[in-house]
């Protein structure tokens, strides 16, 4: 997984609450057996009509957002199905940072295991960022070392993230390799552990 310490990028605003993982990547695309190539199906039912033509009225289809790497969404982002295809699709499309006022637990976890940083800000702040990005080409910087988000026009705020996912993201660690350094403890535990 690619480490992430500080990232500056174009913001894509998605002003909707409760965006669920089926909207992020509809189920008809879950049948592949590799982790790659899901970006083309991101938000598919919003981006394309029944004849697979791009829907002009969906904002992510506008040329100005094509290089966006930061998504700012509404509350309870990523609710619903546990499918990790959702962060795979976001990452493959080019998003490295998702900002929202709250995230569903499993989605949050899945992001951090795939080099995507989920950032929790206050609802007023996300609304402000969404407005800014709807108006102009809007860039933000997210600093995971300092736990800060800022632009070059005076917006500046801090965020909280637990130490563990922060460390994993900053170092781009393979979690299994880390766990396997505790292999002896797992083996010792298994000796006395009762499972019927």
């Amino acid at each position, binding site marked *: 997984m690619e480490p992430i310490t500080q990232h500056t990028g174009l913001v894509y605003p998605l002003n909707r*609450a*409760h965006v*669920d993982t*089926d*909207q992020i990547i*509809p*189920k*008809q695309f*879950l*049948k*592949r*057996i*590799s*982790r790659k190539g899901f970006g083309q199906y991101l938000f598919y*039912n919003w981006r394309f009509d*029944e004849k697979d033509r791009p829907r002009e009225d969906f904002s992510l289809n506008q040329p100005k957002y094509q290089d966006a790497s930061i998504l700012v969404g509404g*509350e*309870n982002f990523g*609710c*619903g*199905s*546990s*499918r*990790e295809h959702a*962060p795979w699709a976001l990452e493959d499309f080019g998003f490295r940072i998702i900002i929202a006022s*709250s995230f*569903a*637990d*499993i989605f949050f*976890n*899945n992001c951090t*295991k*795939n080099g995507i940083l989920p950032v929790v800000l206050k609802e007023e702040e996300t609304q402000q960022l969404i407005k800014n990005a709807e108006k102009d080409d809007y860039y933000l910087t997210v600093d995971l070392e300092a736990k800060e988000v800022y632009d070059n026009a005076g917006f500046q705020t801090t965020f909280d993230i*637990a*130490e*563990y996912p922060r460390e994993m993201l900053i170092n781009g660690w393979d*979690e*299994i390799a880390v*766990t*396997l350094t*505790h*292999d002896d*403890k*797992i083996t010792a*535990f*298994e000796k006395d*552990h*009762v*499972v*019927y």
Partner: protein
Amino acid sequence: MTKPKTIIEKIWDKNVVHEIPNRPSLLYIDLHLIHEVTSPQAFEGLRMKGRKVRQPKRTFATMDHNVPTVHTNVIKDEISKLQMDTLRKNCEEFDVPLAGMGHKHQGIVHVIGPELGLTQPGKTIVCGDSHTSTHGAFGALAFGIGTSEVEHVLSTQTIWQAKPKTLNVKIDGELGTGVTAKDIVLALISKYGVDFGTGYVIEYTGEAIRKLSMEGRMTICNMSIEAGARAGLVSPDQTTIDFLEGRLHVPSGEEFEQAKQDWLSLATDPDATYDHTVTLNASEVEPQVTWGTNPSQCIPVNGYIPNPNSKDDPNAQQEIKHSLEYMGLEPDIPINSVPIEHVFIGSCTNSRLEDLKQAASVIKGRKVSDKVNAIVVPGSQTVKAKAEELGLDKEFLEAGFEWREPGCSMCLAMNGDAVPPGERCASTSNRNFEGRQGADARTHLVSPEMATAAAIAGHFVDIRTFV
């Protein structure tokens, strides 16, 4: 005397392998359930790194999401077939037990776990599926994980977890006739919202929960995720023990007596405290119908579709408006006047034998409306076989329902069973999200009894007066 503990703390303490200050703990996983959709990339990851499955015997696989429910011997969808073949190969290569297509135990992962006695009190259970919370009904700590975590559990039999906060959802009072576990959980989410459980593990307590069957408890725990909680559980009691005794993977004889003692001792201690408590009075719950695009957008069957103007907050107005538009509904009309075209009885929420029995009991010789397509999809081969022994298949078929092969089917419409665009379905499943049952499909969540009644009437009806 030791400090009183909740069942959540007891399971946690029993299964922590290693703790590091200010970090998640390494938690041992007792049962890892697997299905075809969220596992291929995990096995691929193992292969790429030359890793093995640490405990194949604590792993169990089935096929459910993609499986066809008609003509199951020829799988027309090439990509679904590839996913199922991949699971079969992976299970062979890594020695994981599999109840795949054609196996007499195949079925929805959350139906077969309890049915086979794999699900037991005190176990930590994970699966690459958000409705893993279902297994909590037995007093297990069970939650959904992503594919990277599936790979992690396969290879280490552990997962890094922060100790959860505890939420007591206390449901007292007596359920009225015709009101079910499904109505309790819908009413609960409608009262407290789709994220009141976020960050918590829920324990459902109170006399109404105690009186429920294991099936009813599973229905409630199943939808914990719709309240934002990754896990929801019920302390084990005699009902739990009676359900488990004699099941395939449950020990017998003396070992069962020992297990029984251990299991009952896991129940929350009388004076244990929770981080937070919410309550619901079961006697006030009425049969529920969702009208919108998340499970909290729900009203009693005799209620009226909400009007956006009834809210002051512009965001709340917008949310209602958006949902009404998607659902093709006008505000202020009675929900029981809305005609439906489809009925789906199935899913890990409501496809067990008890659900099918209750659904069938509503028929009473009547027929499905000629404007409605209604299907019944049993949760597993075992449920199907037992239902057929009881003649339920005939009752459904005679009434005009279709009787299908087990699988997830129209709950998420991945296998080709879908609600066509713009059409309306009364469904016993758990999610009414946009597109869940097919592109532009409109879903109303209800109990199995309410679904049958709607199939017959062609619109929603109050089951309490539908005699």
